[in-house]
């Protein structure tokens, strides 16, 4: 029984500098990894750096649970002039998610990279991966709007390079990475323009300060323009339908290391930042905020959940199926948040964590199989369960969770979402969640049917079970999908604390 209490009983005491150490750790490790002599040492540095960040994130989570939000002034300069880190229940939840995904991905990368990237490049891959991780951790802990942009770009630039490195396996990784770079940079630049408008209207960049000053400005058109730029910019980064064009390419051609990490964290952190802006920074009662949620966010999220689930059903490459499913699931997360109630937000955040876990399991299992079977199409994976039973079982656990089979985390997540939608009286949202779940069943069924119940055509290349270093993290994650399905107190409490932090004062 893992609960919040056992978690923060295990949490180390918070050192005064934990928030900044959590970001600086992977950042320093990135420099060391880039200079390290062999692929092996860079892998060890990467694992150490990620574990250090996770340790700090755990310390912060414990501290936030015990004493409330953590404030940290960089260099001792107090905000609004200085840059502050501000980690509340939501930030702590995200930091824990990102850093534990980082640990899993880095352990996994020890074997998976060898098959996908030339050995002399490993040191640089690990460095870019650590940079990406440091950027995302900084993004979820900063309390400064402009600082968030810098961290967003630190993580994104690492991610662009990492997707491009997939070219050894498939040269189509290069145009995919280029496309990702163009879209990502446009998104980040739109976000900066929005921040510029807010700065022009308020003269501050600190989020708490911005929130206080925006509340007095009312429906100023400068603020509204800033809101629009920020939401669209972050929407691109979060792969919000219809701005998700970069995602399928990046997820299908990148090396497994980065794909599992991105699938678990990248879009999620942008959703986090968007939620932070919509609910925290911009005044709660503002008409433009409410209209946006009701007429743009919720309908687009619902469309994503339906359309991209259908699209996933018709895709032929396994990773593309999972990628389109990610866009659909982002829609479901946003649907939860768009309810703007404590129940809805905590359901959305719960779904966010659940989706991170199940997508990570799925991409990891596929990546593990792809070490011996460099195939993309679902048909090439026919009958894999006979050759690689453990990987296939882990895949099945993740897939069942994704489809929302009872006794898995995915079931609880969908259930919470339905409950929250009905509770808020939004029947159409509940209906969308139900329909999207049924559609999920279709493509999950297709994948499981191919892997388990079809036999490989004669003479086709056969898969070999993934090496232990790859299999271990996959099985741990697959186990967690089931474990949390039976006892969800940990993610539930994290999501609840996050929702309360996000919607202080909402019903």
């Amino acid at each position, binding site marked *: 029984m893992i609960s919040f209490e056992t978690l923060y009983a295990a949490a180390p005491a918070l050192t005064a500098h934990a928030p900044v150490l959590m970001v600086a750790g992977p950042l320093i490790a990135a420099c060391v990894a880039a200079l390290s002599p062999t692929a092996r040492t860079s892998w060890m540095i990467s694992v150490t750096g990620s574990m250090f960040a996770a340790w700090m994130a755990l310390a912060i989570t414990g501290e936030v649970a015990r004493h409330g939000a953590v404030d940290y002034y960089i260099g001792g300069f107090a905000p609004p002039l200085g840059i502050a880190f501000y980690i509340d229940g939501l930030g702590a939840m995200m930091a824990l998610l990102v850093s534990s995904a980082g640990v899993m991905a880095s352990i996994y990368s020890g074997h998976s990279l060898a098959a996908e990237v030339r050995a002399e490049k490993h040191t640089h891959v690990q460095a870019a991966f650590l940079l990406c991780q440091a950027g995302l951790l900084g993004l979820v802990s900063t309390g400064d709007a*402009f600082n968030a*942009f*810098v961290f967003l*770009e630190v993580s994104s*630039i690492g991610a*662009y*390079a990492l997707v*491009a490195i997939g*070219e050894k396996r*498939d*040269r*189509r990784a*290069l*145009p995919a*990475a*280029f496309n990702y*770079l*163009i879209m990502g*940079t*446009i998104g*980040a*630049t739109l976000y*900066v*323009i929005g921040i*510029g408008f807010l*700065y*022009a209207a308020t003269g501050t*960049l600190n989020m708490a300060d911005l929130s206080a000053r925006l509340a007095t400005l009312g429906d100023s058109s400068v603020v509204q323009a800033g809101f629009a730029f920020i939401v669209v910019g972050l929407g691109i980064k979060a792969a919000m339908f219809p701005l998700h064009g970069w995602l399928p390419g990046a997820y299908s051609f990148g090396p497994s290391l980065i794909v599992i990490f991105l699938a678990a964290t990248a879009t999620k952190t942008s959703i986090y930042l968007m939620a932070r802006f919509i609910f925290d920074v911009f005044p709660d009662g503002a008409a433009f905020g409410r209209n946006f949620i009701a007429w743009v966010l919720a309908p687009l999220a619902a469309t994503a959940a339906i359309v991209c689930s259908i699209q996933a059903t018709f895709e*032929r*490459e396994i990773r593309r199926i999972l990628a389109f499913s990610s866009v659909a699931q982002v829609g479901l997360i946003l649907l939860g948040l768009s309810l703007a109630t404590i129940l809805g937000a905590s359901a959305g955040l719960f779904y966010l964590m659940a989706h991170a876990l199940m997508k990570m399991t799925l991409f990891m299992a596929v990546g593990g199989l792809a070490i011996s079977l460099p195939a*993309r*199409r679902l*048909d*090439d994976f026919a009958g894999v369960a006979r050759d690689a039973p453990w990987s296939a079982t882990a895949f099945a656990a993740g897939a069942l969770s994704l489809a929302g089979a009872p006794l898995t985390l995915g079931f609880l997540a969908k259930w919470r979402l339905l409950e929250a939608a009905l509770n808020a009286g939004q029947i159409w949202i509940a209906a969308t969640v139900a329909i999207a779940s049924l559609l999920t069943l279709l493509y999950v069924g297709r994948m499981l049917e191919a892997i388990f119940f079809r036999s490989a*055509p004669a003479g*086709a290349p056969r898969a070999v079970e993934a090496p232990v270093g790859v299999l271990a993290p996959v099985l741990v994650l697959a186990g967690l999908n089931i474990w949390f399905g039976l006892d969800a107190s940990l993610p539930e409490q994290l999501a609840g604390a996050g929702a309360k932090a996000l919607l202080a004062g909402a019903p």
Partner: protein
Amino acid sequence: MSFILLHFNYVAVAILMMAGLFVVVSSSNLIKRMIGLAIFQTSTGLLYISLGKVSSGTAAITVDAASPEKQALANHLDPAYVAQYGVAGVVYSNPLPHVLILTAIVVGVATLAVGLAIAVRVREAFGSVEADEIEVLSRLESAQAGSQA
């Protein structure tokens, strides 16, 4: 008309921004796309810097109150402005946007470098930097992967 003249810096920003975005969207050459992206990013720099400019304000380096420079700088100020805001001495432009944009420029340069590096690799792998030719080659590859099995 006077509205446009009063906000000419924003007009310039909007034109640059749209020009950059247009190049990114419309051209198929990867290098041209990167150029468009760079213009798009530069327009943000202009937006921020022009926000921070105070008319007749000088760079934010404190001058000695007794020095002749201070007198010279103070003399640059518009008397109407001095009367309206009651300033005594030197007016400084807001330095914060400059610092922010310095950071954003660094980010922009890094993105440009990564983007161009990827474009170089695209050229090595596909023999072209035209997005539509690459698209055709990629599609061909997807189709071949399908027919093999």
